[in-house]
């Protein structure tokens, strides 16, 4: 079951040993690699845009732009990926508020740090129990209060379990924001921060964002269409977030792959505020036997 993890761990150990042994040999290379790095970031590539124009794009931006083209157009995006029901498991015992998930999400959804889709909340269940970090995204509920109240069907539930928003239909009434008990939704109060993005709109990436409409975590369906994990999952350095297809009974955090049913059973998985009956598609594993002590002042989380 855990041989995958084991394998990677032993590999890492090996890499470390080798590294320590070759510090002296490597230091000589430092200057040359610095200069080559610089060159790389200023290089440009010519790309063809969807409307047939040739544009020059710096190489450093290509990775960020690439995924935008994979989002399906609004009509297609309503359907969902056939044969899948996506599910997420967040292991609270591993989270140390590294905030890499937040940063990756902000980057790929073009968000400013003051209104992210993902929040890592400092939680404390009661005065005696220890505080813990709780990464919170949209729970993609199976009984979604936000979708129920939408007057125009701008937010919708797909067959693959994902709740998306069509910003070309949203009228900005913000009823969904009031209805969501988990405060998962944000609103584009003003004009989008990125200015004008010259790409066709897709609800699967929520880009380019439109003023006066609602947005939220979308489980990155553009990535899922390519059988790739959402950005937050692959960005997490501690393997906190597991993601998978519920119908295949398997979730992965990028390193280890486990059976969803086994994981939830063995580690007492739960859903936040089950009593609301919203049936979230995001499970939590309780913050027991934690890997990291709770530290409020984390060097990583200061940055954002």
């Amino acid at each position: 079951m855990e041989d995958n993890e084991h394998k990677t761990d032993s590999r890492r150990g090996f890499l470390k040993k080798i590294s320590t042994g070759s510090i002296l040999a490597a230091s000589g290379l430092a200057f040359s690699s610095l200069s080559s790095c610089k060159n790389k970031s200023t290089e440009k590539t010519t790309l063809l845009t969807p409307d047939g124009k040739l544009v020059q794009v710096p190489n450093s931006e290509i990775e960020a732009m690439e995924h935008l083209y994979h989002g399906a157009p609004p009509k297609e995006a309503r359907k969902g990926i056939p044969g899948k029901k996506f599910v997420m498991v967040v292991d609270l015992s591993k989270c140390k508020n590294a905030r890499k998930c937040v940063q990756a999400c902000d980057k790929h959804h073009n968000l400013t740090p003051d209104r992210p889709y993902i929040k890592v909340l400092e939680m404390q269940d009661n005065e005696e129990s220890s505080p813990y970090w709780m990464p919170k995204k949209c729970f993609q509920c199976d009984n979604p209060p936000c979708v129920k109240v939408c007057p125009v069907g701008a937010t919708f539930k797909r067959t693959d379990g994902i709740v998306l928003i069509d910003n070309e239909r949203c009228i900005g009434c913000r009823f969904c924001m009031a209805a969501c008990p988990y405060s998962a939704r944000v609103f584009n109060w003003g004009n989008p921060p990125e200015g004008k993005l010259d790409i066709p709109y897709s609800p699967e990436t929520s880009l380019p964002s439109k003023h006066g409409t609602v947005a939220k975590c979308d489980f990155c369906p553009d990535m899922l269409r390519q059988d790739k994990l959402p950005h937050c999952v692959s960005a997490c350095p501690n393997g906190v977030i597991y993601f998978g297809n519920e119908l295949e009974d398997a979730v992965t955090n990028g390193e280890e792959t486990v059976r969803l049913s086994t994981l939830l059973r063995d580690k007492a998985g739960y859903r936040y505020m089950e009593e609301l009956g919203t049936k979230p598609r995001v499970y939590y594993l309780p913050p027991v036997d934690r890997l990291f002590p709770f530290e409020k002042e984390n060097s990583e989380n200061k940055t954002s």
Partner: protein
Amino acid sequence: MKTTIINIIWILKISWSLLFIFFNFHMVLGQEDESMEDAKIALDFVADTDSKFIVATATNSNNEPIEDLELYFYVKRSFSNLPIGDIFNATDENGTVKIEFPNDLPGDSEGNVTILVKVIDSDLYNDLTIETIKKWGVPSLPPDQFQEKRSLWAAAANAPIPLILIISALIFSIWFIIFYIIYMFFKISKIEIINSKSY
């Protein structure tokens, strides 16, 4: 100050990895020539009434069984491969290893699962992957099960019928009254002065 340190650390890291890859590359090439060989894996699928087993037999180029060869068993999933069997599955003196295939693992709509058997990072044998499709999984729900059902959270076209009926009945009854009143006004306007009686 801090960023400079981080930068230097990064540069060092990159350099180490480059060096490492460089050396490793040579090592691998060197080994392949001398001692690395291809292992042969024969797979046998045994299905009882209530349990299923995969029996793998590893032999070398001389058809001799390989003992203590680490084999990895996986089932293909959307984003990654799900390991099955024990944590370590090494062949015995006959070159075989037997692992149990879970009975409740979902397959596709027909119950097909893709089973992968791999040799990874062995000291003596090259990496190897054998892919087999087997009808051992639990069939997943047929596609029509995914059709959106009538519910409060469904699209407009799939609103619950009682809701549509109740709201339509209410709208119809109140607007019937409204139109009846408008009709009454129309009739009032059509009454001509017969017995003129200004008050």
